[in-house]
C-alpha cells in the first residue's frame, strides 16, 4: 500500500531515466502508442496508464485476463506495472500481450519513467512529438481499402494456427487475434517486402495476395 501511495505521487525523474526509457520504448511501440494523438492499435494506448484500472480503456478489445484482473481490482500503480513489465504472464496469466518481459530493473524503471510523463495530467501532456507509429511500409489506399472475405480468411488462417494460438494465448509465438485490420495488413506487407526480418513470416506472407492478406486481417480481427 505504501508503495502504491508513493507510486501515485512519483514523478518521472524519481522512477528512472525517461530519456533512456524512450529507447526501451522501442520494444513497445510496435503495438502501443503514447503521447499526443495516441490511439488504440494492436495494444491499447498508454496515455494516463499510471493509476488506471487494468482493462479500462473504452473501445479496446482486451483479453479475458486483463478484464478479469481489472474487475479484481488491479490498478496500474508503479509496483504492479513493474511486475507486469518483468513478466506479463506471471501477473496476468492469459494476457494477449506478446512480450517476454524486460529483464533488468533499470530498463523497467526507465520505460516507466518515460511513460510517467504521459500520465500525471493527461490534458497537460508535455510538448513531446506524437509517438503515433510511422508505418513500416506505405501502402496504396486501395490496398488498405480491400474488404477481406472472412470465410476465405478462416481457411487461410488454418495455416497460421499451427503456431499462433487461435485464443490469442502467448507461449513464445505472438498473438495475432483482435488486431485492427490495418495494422494486420501493414505488418503482413512489411514481411512480404522483407522490411520485417523473420524468415518464417517472410516466407508465409511472401505468397499471399493483397486479397488474401485482407481476408486474414478480417478473420483474425473479428474473432469472437
Amino acid at each position, binding site marked *: 500500500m505504501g508503495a502504491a501511495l508513493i507510486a501515485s505521487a512519483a514523478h518521472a525523474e524519481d522512477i528512472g531515466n525517461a530519456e533512456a526509457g524512450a529507447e526501451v520504448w522501442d520494444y513497445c511501440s510496435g503495438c502501443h502508442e503514447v503521447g499526443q494523438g495516441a490511439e488504440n492499435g494492436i495494444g491499447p494506448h498508454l496515455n494516463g496508464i499510471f493509476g488506471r484500472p487494468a482493462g479500462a480503456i473504452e473501445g479496446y478489445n482486451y483479453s479475458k485476463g486483463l478484464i478479469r484482473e481489472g474487475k479484481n481490482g488491479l490498478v496500474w500503480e508503479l509496483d504492479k506495472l513493474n511486475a507486469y513489465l518483468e513478466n506479463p504472464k506471471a501477473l496476468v496469466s492469459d494476457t494477449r500481450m506478446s512480450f*517476454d518481459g524486460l529483464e533488468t530493473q533499470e530498463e523497467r524503471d526507465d520505460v516507466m519513467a518515460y511513460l510517467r510523463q504521459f500520465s500525471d495530467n493527461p490534458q497537460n501532456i508535455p510538448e513531446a512529438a506524437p509517438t503515433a507509429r510511422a508505418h513500416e511500409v506505405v501502402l496504396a489506399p486501395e490496398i488498405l481499402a480491400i474488404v477481406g472475405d472472412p*470465410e*476465405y480468411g478462416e*481457411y*487461410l488462417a*488454418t*495455416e497460421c*494456427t*499451427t*503456431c*499462433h*494460438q*487461435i*485464443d490469442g*494465448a*502467448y*507461449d*513464445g*509465438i505472438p498473438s495475432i487475434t483482435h488486431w485492427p485490420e490495418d495494422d494486420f495488413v501493414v505488418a503482413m506487407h512489411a514481411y512480404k517486402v522483407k522490411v520485417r526480418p523473420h*524468415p*518464417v513470416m*517472410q*516466407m*508465409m506472407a*511472401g*505468397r499471399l495476395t493483397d486479397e488474401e492478406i485482407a481476408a486474414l486481417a478480417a478473420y483474425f480481427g473479428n474473432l469472437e
Partner: protein
Amino acid sequence: MTLNRRAFIGTGAAAAAALSAPHVKADNHAGKPKVVVIGGGAGGATAARYIAKDSKGAIDVTLVEPSRMYYTCFFSNLYMGGFRELSSIGHSYGGLAKGGVNVVHDWAVGVDRAAKTVTLAGGAVLNYDRLVLSPGIDFVDGAVPGWDVTSQNKMPHAYKAGSQSELLKAQIESMPQGGTFAMVAPPNPFRCPPGPYERISMVAHVLKEKNPTAKIIIADPKAKFSKMALFQEGWSNHYDGMIDWIGSDFGGGNVEVNANEMTVSIDGEVTKVDACNVIPAMKAGRICELAGITEGNWAPVHAATMQSRVDENIHVLGDASAQGDMPKSGFSANSQAKVCAMAVRGALTGSKVFPAKFSNTCWSLIDTDDGVKVGATYEATDEKIAKVAGFISKTGEDAALRKATFDESVGWYAGITSDMFGS
C-alpha cells in the same frame, strides 16, 4: 470422383440450410455423412477436429486411436535431453471428444473398400463415406540385420514416443563412464529428417554433463542429412571430439547389430556398445497396406485433396503418404490435415473448397538455447505437393538469434498441440 462431386454440389444448398438449422437434419440422421479417421497424431487429430468443428455437426466424425494418452514424437528428443518432462508432451483426447469427435480407443485391423467399412480389433465395424488414414510409420522388416521387434528393449528405436523414449533415456543415463552410445540412422525417406541428429545432440548434451568421456557413434546409410552443416557446426562448438558420424561413403550403411551381445558391426568392424538406438527403415503404418492403397512402402496421394491415388474415398495424411516434396513431419501432417478436412467437407456437405496451401517448419535444438530451423511453403500440382519457397538457419548465427529460435519452437509446440487436440 467427378460424379460424386457433382452430386454433392447439387445438394449443396440443402446442406447449407442444414448447417444453419441442425434440427432439420436430425430427422434424416441415417443420412448424415460419416468420416472415420484412423490415427490420432498430428494428421489424424487435426483432421478429425477440423472436420467436426467446421461442419458444425453435419458430419459424423469417429477417430480410431489405440493410445489413450498420445506422446508427440516432436519434442521427445527434448525430453531425452532433459529439457522437457515426459508429461509435458503427453496429450489426452478429451478436447476432441468435447469438440464433437467420437473418440474410439481401439486398433483398426481391416478396411473393406468395397463395403466402405473399417473393422476394429475389438470387433466393431464402422461405416464410412470418407476414410482418413493417418497411421504414421511402421518399420521395414529386416531393415537392420540382427534387429527386429523383439530386440527393441535392448536396442530401442524410440521413434514412436512414450515408453521407448523413457527406456532409451534411462539407458543413456546409466551408461558407464567413458562408455559408447551408438545410433543406427535410417535411410530416406523417414519420419522427421532432422530427428536422429537432434537426438544425437540431446544425447551429447546429457553425456557432456554426466559422462564427459563417453563416445557417440552414428552409422548412417546416407551421405548427407537434414541441417547437416548446422548440426556439424553445433557438434564441434558444443561437443568437440565426442561424436563420430560415419556416413555411407565410409561404410555407415553396412551395419549389423547383435542385441544380446550389445555389439554393432559397421563395415565389418565390430564395436561393443553400452546403449544403442536402432532406427530402422520405415514404411507407411500397416493399415495402409491392409487397405491395399500402398505402392512400395508408402501410400501415394493426389496433392490437392490428399486423396489416395488408389481409392477416392480414402485420404492419407502425414508420414504414411507419398505426396511429393514435403518432409515427413508433424507440422506437415497438420498442414495436410487442414487441406484434407476442407476437401472432405466440400465433398460431403458442398462447403466451399479453396486452393490447397501447405507449409512446414522444423525446429531442432543443438544445445541449451541453441535452436535452428528449416522451413518451406508448398502448393498442389497434378503430380505432387511441390515446393514453392524455403529458408534455413545459417551457420554462425549469434546466440541471441539461436535463443529466439528455440523460444519460438516452444511457442510452436503450444500452438500445434492446441491446434491438434483443441485444448
